[in-house]
């Protein structure tokens, strides 16, 4: 039997996915993820709470941002759903009325998991560089670290990687100090023997 010719994924393919299934189109390929597992979803919520207060609501911080959880971003031919994204309000003064956002965010946060880390650190990060998303945060809820990079002349520079031990300030939210331990919704697992 002849193999069907490979074609690039289309937005129609994404719309045809069942309810509750997340899809992304990255360099012409469709990637499907089920809803995130509880630790992942809870970490997304925790970061949103910590950052949203000072930077969206202006409580204990300067405000001036919008945030969305798993927004559908249309960046050129790509359709991405970062775990959290933020926009400075001067770049996007009103929220879109469409089901998607085609203004590139100023910040994204990806919560890493084994099935997505390859794409998060690889193809998606290359797309973020192309669209000038300057300070992606990578949060690993199981290994308990937060990695912050900055885009300099098209290349990623590692700003720092934080663990539970320290209070930290990291771009683009350096106006407020955070404790990484506050981002974790669950206490650390007991040490494993392997």
């Amino acid at each position, binding site marked *: 039997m002849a193999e069907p010719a490979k074609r690039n994924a289309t937005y129609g393919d994404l719309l045809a996915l069942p309810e509750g299934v997340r899809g992304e189109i990255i360099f012409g390929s469709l990637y499907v993820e089920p809803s995130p597992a509880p630790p992942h979803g809870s970490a997304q919520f925790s970061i949103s709470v910590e950052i949203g207060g000072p930077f969206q609501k202006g409580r204990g911080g300067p405000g001036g941002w919008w945030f969305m959880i798993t927004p559908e971003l249309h960046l050129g031919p790509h359709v991405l759903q970062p775990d959290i994204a933020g926009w400075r309000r001067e770049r996007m003064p009103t929220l879109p009325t469409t089901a998607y956002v085609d203004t590139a965010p100023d910040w994204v946060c990806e919560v890493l998991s084994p099935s997505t*880390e390859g794409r998060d650190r*690889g193809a998606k990060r290359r797309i973020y560089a192309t669209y000038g998303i300057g300070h992606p945060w990578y949060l690993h809820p199981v290994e308990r670290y937060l990695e912050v990079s900055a885009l300099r002349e098209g290349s990623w520079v590692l700003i720092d990687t934080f663990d539970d031990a320290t209070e930290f300030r990291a771009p683009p939210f350096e106006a407020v100090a955070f404790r990484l331990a506050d981002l974790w919704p669950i206490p650390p697992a007991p040490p*494993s023997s392997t």
Partner: protein
Amino acid sequence: MLEHISRPAAYADLVAVPEHLVAEILYDELVTHPRPNPRGSRAAARIMGALVGPFDIGVGGPGGWIFHDEPELHLGSHVVAPDVAGWRVERLPEIEPGTDVDAFIDTPPDWFCEVISPSTERRDRTTKFKLYAEFHVRHYWLINPATRVLEVYAHCDGAWMLVSTYSGDDTVAAPPFEACPMPLTHFLPLPKRATEGEEPPHG
């Protein structure tokens, strides 16, 4: 159970660590992790295997390097046990036959590769970056056999720059070994089943 040490760790503390653990002294703290699991040790063996031919022996490549597998490094007051490390040959003293050899190397490498595992990832991404920068190591590769990702970092202008990231069956042409491009599958074989999460476009 290891006794908690509240003073700066000493070499004697490291020697007292049981054989089944790997011990390091980083910023005055004794830290241990289990010996690599089979997936991790295979990745380290493959990396050495892929690089030694062209870059150490000089077959199919320019040579000029010396690699060591799990060496004990004494860098200042730190005792570091990386998975794989490499030195440009002119920077390591020749070992004369018949002479006594120290059990450790105190010349900082030109290149480290750490194989990420759950027990080491946080330290590989935090403490090790800081320490290697202090000792002017210019090249750091992080390879994760579980996610099948290779990250290549280079230290310049006071910061670690992500040079490139490789996954799947990408061709790796990464400093300092860009002279011999090779498929990532030389370091990390592809799994037999289809990559998790991938679905073909609907027809």
